[in-house]
């Protein structure tokens, strides 16, 4: 039970905090959110750079990269070794998911938006909130150091399936793994780092839920909350239920690796050439169950907040009331609920009982339903709108377009017989980048462009923002769309060099094309980086509500002071009163007094 001091007593008389308390060990949710934002973006660069290395290898399997050998002794001279390749795509995915998307969506936007959008002064437990950020630091440090430990960082994919990840020598023979050089200390670092990420997220989610349940401003009923808050709420619920399971799985694997427990090692142990593990007794498949029990809900953790944010952004710039507010909320709840019973779709070919496969398939395909409801409601919101093409809006629209592609490819894999062919091919890689990169990341970009003025009091440069958007949209499609095609041709994923295979001869040209697009995509991000930093100091200053938006955060000054609101806002209506014909303006903030002649809305 962590604890907070009362803000009600000191709300209007803040003692000036020192630099350290104000910007580093801050308990202010906005500062913590921005801290998450900066760390997430830095890790995005690292993860992205790794992705480019991955692409280089696939596009030019025989090519050489001069600096690799100098930095990382494990590689083969000027070329990447296959082990090294395994390491970089594993770390690419790990960093992108656990150190970029989740911290950005829930950490940065969750922290920044929740209290502001429900009209609270801060999170329920500011100290806990601070701790949730600082518990990320051991994870940051460990995951970065793990590149340089003996054997290199983890290299068993972001899924870290045993036994490749977990095989160890018998007690007393050190932490080497007979399975792969990366499964020794590097894997241990991976596990420990993720445990820290998990603890951090768990603290965050308890805090978010409590805040949303108990600290809403007067008048802010549940069904007056903006979808961003709803999505954060549902995400927090997902996290609090799913994360502990991952934590257990991580700890069990950690025990397997360090003290020779046998949770994932089958009876009799396994043999690697002339090296052998200790005795066994457990079940290899158990890890996959525990892992996906978390990680499937986790993919919704990585999309729901983006969906919520995008809904708000679309409404703001479409100047239109959200179409079907309650169905949207129910759809999110439905996705979350169903999300818990579909994890087996990652395991159709894993040797899981095929009868379970049928059940998981039915559940999985049904999850397209709430997603359909969301998609059609977005489209209906745009219908008859008055769309302002700001950078934030463009990114949000791209989210909608790309999520449909990513979601529809999910249906192929959900169908068990088709998945027999498609599983672990580039079709999956295409799917996951469409939903993760092209949906979640576009959602994040949209959120950054949208809330930037609230965070820093200045807008980002719109022109460069649009250039960045257009190029990103173009190149990311060029990078990831052809992956569907090579997936259909059977190109397995996680392949260091596919030119060995006769049936893939045709598609190598596409691989080269994708690599070039990916490099251009990487260069494009420099525009974003420069725009972001430049605008911090030189962006146009703006007032409290530059987008003429309705939600509560725009009622606070930009950037909001400690304590957020000059006076506690009173909420009088839902967040989507745009284009109401009964009033003169085309928007009506949640806090504004009821204009005369307008009937009070039902909710």
């Amino acid at each position: 039970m962590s604890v907070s001091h009362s803000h009600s007593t000191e709300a209007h008389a803040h003692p000036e905090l020192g630099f350290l308390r104000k910007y580093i060990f801050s308990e202010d949710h906005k500062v913590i959110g921005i801290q998450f934002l900066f760390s997430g973006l830095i890790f995005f660069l690292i993860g992205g750079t790794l992705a480019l290395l991955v692409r280089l290898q696939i596009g030019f399997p025989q090519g050489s990269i001069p600096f690799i050998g100098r930095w990382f002794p494990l590689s083969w001279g000027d070329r990447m070794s296959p082990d090294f390749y395994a390491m970089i795509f594993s770390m690419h995915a790990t960093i992108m998911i656990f150190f970029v998307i989740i911290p950005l969506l829930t950490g940065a936007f969750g922290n920044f938006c929740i209290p502001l959008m429900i009209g609270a002064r801060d999170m329920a437990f500011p100290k806990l909130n601070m701790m949730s950020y600082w518990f990320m630091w051991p994870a940051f440090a460990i995951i970065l150091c793990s590149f340089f430990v003996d054997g290199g960082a983890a290299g068993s994919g972001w899924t870290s399936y045993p036994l490749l990840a977990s095989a160890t020598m018998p007690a007393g023979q050190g932490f080497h793994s007979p399975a792969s050089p990366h499964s020794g200390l590097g894997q241990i670092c991976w596990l420990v780092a993720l445990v820290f990420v998990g603890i951090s997220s768990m603290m965050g989610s308890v805090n978010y839920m409590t805040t949303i349940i108990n600290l809403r401003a007067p008048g802010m009923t549940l069904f007056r909350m903006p979808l961003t808050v709803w999505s954060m709420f549902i995400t927090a619920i997902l996290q609090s239920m799913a994360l502990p399971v991952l934590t257990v799985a991580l700890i069990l694997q950690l025990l397997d690796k360090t003290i020779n427990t046998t949770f994932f090692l089958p009876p009799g142990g396994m043999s690697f050439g002339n090296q052998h593990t200790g005795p066994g007794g457990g079940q290899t498949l158990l890890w996959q169950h525990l892992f996906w029990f978390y990680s499937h809900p986790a993919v919704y953790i990585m999309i729901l907040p983006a969906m919520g944010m995008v809904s708000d952004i679309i409404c703001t710039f479409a100047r239109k009331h959200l179409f079907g507010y309650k169905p949207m909320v129910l759809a999110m709840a439905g996705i979350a609920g169903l999300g818990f019973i579909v994890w087996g779709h990652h395991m159709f070919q894993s040797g899981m009982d095929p009868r379970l496969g049928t059940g998981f398939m039915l559940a999985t395909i049904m999850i397209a339903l709430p997603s359909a409801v969301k998609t059609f409601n977005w489209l209906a919101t745009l219908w008859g709108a008055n769309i302002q093409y700001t950078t934030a809006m463009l990114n949000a629209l791209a989210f909608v377009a790309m999520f449909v592609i990513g979601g529809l490819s999910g249906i192929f894999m959900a169908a068990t017989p088709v998945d027999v062919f498609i599983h672990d091919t580039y079709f999956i890689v295409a799917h996951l980048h469409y939903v993760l990169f092209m949906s979640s990341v576009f959602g994040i970009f949209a959120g950054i462009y949208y809330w930037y003025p609230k965070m820093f009091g200045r807008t980002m440069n719109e022109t460069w923002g649009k250039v960045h958007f257009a190029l990103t949209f173009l190149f990311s499609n060029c990078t990831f769309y052809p992956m569907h095609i090579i997936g259909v041709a059977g190109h397995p994923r996680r392949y260091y060099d596919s030119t060995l295979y006769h049936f893939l001869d045709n598609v190598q040209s596409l691989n080269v094309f994708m690599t070039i697009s990916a490099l251009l995509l990487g260069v494009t991000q420099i525009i974003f980086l420069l725009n972001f930093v430049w605008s911090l100091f030189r962006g146009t200053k703006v007032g409290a509500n530059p987008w003429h938006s309705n939600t509560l955060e725009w009622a606070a000054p930009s950037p909001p002071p400690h304590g957020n609101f000059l006076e506690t806002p009173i909420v009088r209506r839902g967040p989507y009163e745009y284009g109401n014909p009964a009033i003169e303006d085309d928007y009506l903030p949640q806090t504004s007094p009821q204009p005369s002649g307008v009937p009070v809305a039902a909710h």
Partner: protein
Amino acid sequence: MQQKGWSIFFGAILLGAFLLFAVAPFVGWWLPANVSTFGPDVDRLFYIILGFTGFFFVLTGAILVYAMYRFAWRANTKSHYVEGNHRLEIAWTVVPAIILLFIAVSQISTWDTIKYYASMPNPDLVMQVTARQWDWSMRYADKPQPDNARAWAEVPAIDDIYLPSELHCWKGANVRIFLKTQDVLHSFFSPQLRLKQDALPGKTIPVWFNATDANTSYNAKTGKWDIDKNKRWEIACAELCGGGHYRMQGMIYVHENKEDYLKWLDGAKEAARSRQPEKKPPAVAKN
């Protein structure tokens, strides 16, 4: 105008995406040849889903682009004020629901055929494949159907034949493979047979297929069995298994008929016998 430009930009990219899928089959970027009895079913289901998803892709894309074009910003106008529409909500819940249910249900029987142990046909040929870092160790009994195949899969017999990474069978044979692994997870993937199955440490997993086309013939000149150049059917490993994952390659030899297979088997036995002495485990004394 600059406003409407964005809808064209979106439209162009979505159209490009659509066209790439339309063109791909004609330039060889598509499903590999299909030589398995259940393969056509898999492909049919693939096309069914492609049809539905293609339809919804075009539908949503068209609506999005049209709305972006039609409802781009105009000063001094207001958007339509609607909060929702129950009938529409129900419609776009129920229609996809029916389609999705149809998609889901249509999968079940094919899945059943491919994977359920109970519905696997009686094998004409039994073999046991052990995956390991990084090759496939194929074990053949000295006859196509060993007695008590399941037990044979567990306990090697003395006259078994081991071949690294070469899978031999004949056209039309119901082949059953008992799939094992010696170390980590691997996955037996044959694109042309539309077959994929992970090998799970500690378990023995039955897999079956029936090839509908042959690719192997006897070359009297060299005395070897040759694969047709245009029908090289590779086995790939589809589950990350360490550094050599990408080169864990196998080759499928489908003989014309059982006679050919038996002929090949005899040859293989002969070859194995001549290799025998060095291969045996540490000295065995017979008395």
